[in-house]
């Protein structure tokens, strides 16, 4: 791995303390986020704030299973986010399909399609596990190990090939994307 410059080191310290998240609530994991945001656990302590649009977001939470229809939107959203960006996969569904492993409509492994920096195991992970994941991600960013966005750029052909194999076509046909 290439050595980081001093400027990148400082930038990584800042990025680790101010992560704006886009929670794409595809699955059941979304229900664990309100308790993590509100009074009981309060993720704003770590500078983690929910943001409304992908343009402003730093971390992308895939909260649970992904249907192939949703995967198109996830890829769109991921590509709209500015670098550097980090992805967290929630629950076993993003790792190996979870209880939906044999469904015709869901994908099984998320990191075939977009690079995942961190997984949270469990079905579903409790807020404590989510906080463990956030602090681990902060540590990884500080050390410069959260390089998913660089992997996506370097292996773009490979990711694109996987996306096309599963979806046939990544382009979304509806009234918002014409």
């Amino acid at each position, binding site marked *: 791995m290439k050595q980081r410059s001093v400027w990148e080191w400082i930038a990584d310290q800042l990025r680790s303390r101010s992560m704006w998240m886009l929670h794409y609530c595809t699955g059941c994991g979304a229900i664990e986020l309100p308790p993590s945001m509100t009074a009981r656990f309060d993720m*704003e302590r770590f500078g983690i704030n929910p943001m409304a649009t992908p343009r402003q977001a730093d971390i992308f939470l895939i909260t649970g299973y992904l249907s192939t229809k949703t995967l198109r939107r996830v890829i769109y959203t991921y590509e709209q986010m500015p670098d550097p960006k980090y992805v967290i996969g929630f629950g076993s569904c993003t790792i190996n399909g979870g209880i939906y492993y044999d469904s015709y409509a869901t994908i099984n492994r998320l990191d075939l399609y977009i690079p995942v920096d961190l997984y949270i195991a469990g079905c579903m992970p409790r807020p404590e596990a989510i906080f463990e994941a956030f602090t681990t991600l902060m540590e990884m960013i500080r050390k410069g190990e959260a390089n998913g966005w660089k992997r996506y750029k370097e292996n773009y052909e490979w990711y694109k090939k996987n996306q096309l194999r599963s979806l046939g076509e990544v382009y979304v046909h509806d009234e918002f994307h014409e």
Partner: protein
Amino acid sequence: MVALKVLAVLSTGFFFGLTLEGIGRKVTARVQRRYGPPWYQNFIDLFKTLTKHPITHGWIFDFGVLMALGGVMATLTFVPLGNLVAFPNLDNIFVILYLFAVGALGMAMGMVGSGNPNASVGVARALTQMLGYELPYLVVLSGVMFHYKTSSVSAIMNAQGDGWNLFKMPVGAIVAFISLLGMLGKKPFDTPIAPAEIASGPMVELSGKYMGLLMLMHTFSIFVEISLFVDIFLGGGNYLVFLLKFTIVWIMAVLISAILPRFRIEQVVKFYWKVPLSLAFLQVFFVLMGWVF
């Protein structure tokens, strides 16, 4: 000397403004029984956005962001902060109000230039809301200017030696404070940037550095708005007294915003044109009759 003073005003706006925003987030968190972020969180947020790799949407977008930030910074230099006045004879209410529109219009132009419908809806709402709060605010200000026979902010500030306008014109001060909440975009009036409805409105396409510059512009415009209120209604004093008054007004706005839900846009305008506008006319009537304590 003027350059030094301008620098002092701008750096006060930067350091004090960002610190107070962080403290405001902490206060909101404590009201909601959370622990809240550290007070320097907004500095981290700002510098982090400046390290990201943003996406542009054409030169109108770039120019609009720069115009917004530049316009608000230019406005700030004309605002007297206690006895720190960068341009002593130019701190006129009309100059400040006109220059302030440059920043708002720059933001409107740039954000519409991004081509996102949510941004257009947000900008339309922001301008509609401006129509709502500006009217009662300007009516009250014209009453104040009529009473003191001057439109210089410093002169009005120094003329309050015997008693603040807050007590001389209590109705007008209340109207101005309600208008101030609308200008700040605090909670009952944060319709233009409603994150849950229109995905943070004008800011929807802002990434990285653009977001950082607009956050800075927002900080500076908060500083201009509250400073104007403090100067006109809370009397004079030196720099430190001014900052103390500023903090109190800001914390009050934050406390009110922490417990209220959001108006819809037509409710905002209806509210401003019913209650504050009638009260503003009442205050002007008092001033015309000479009933100023």
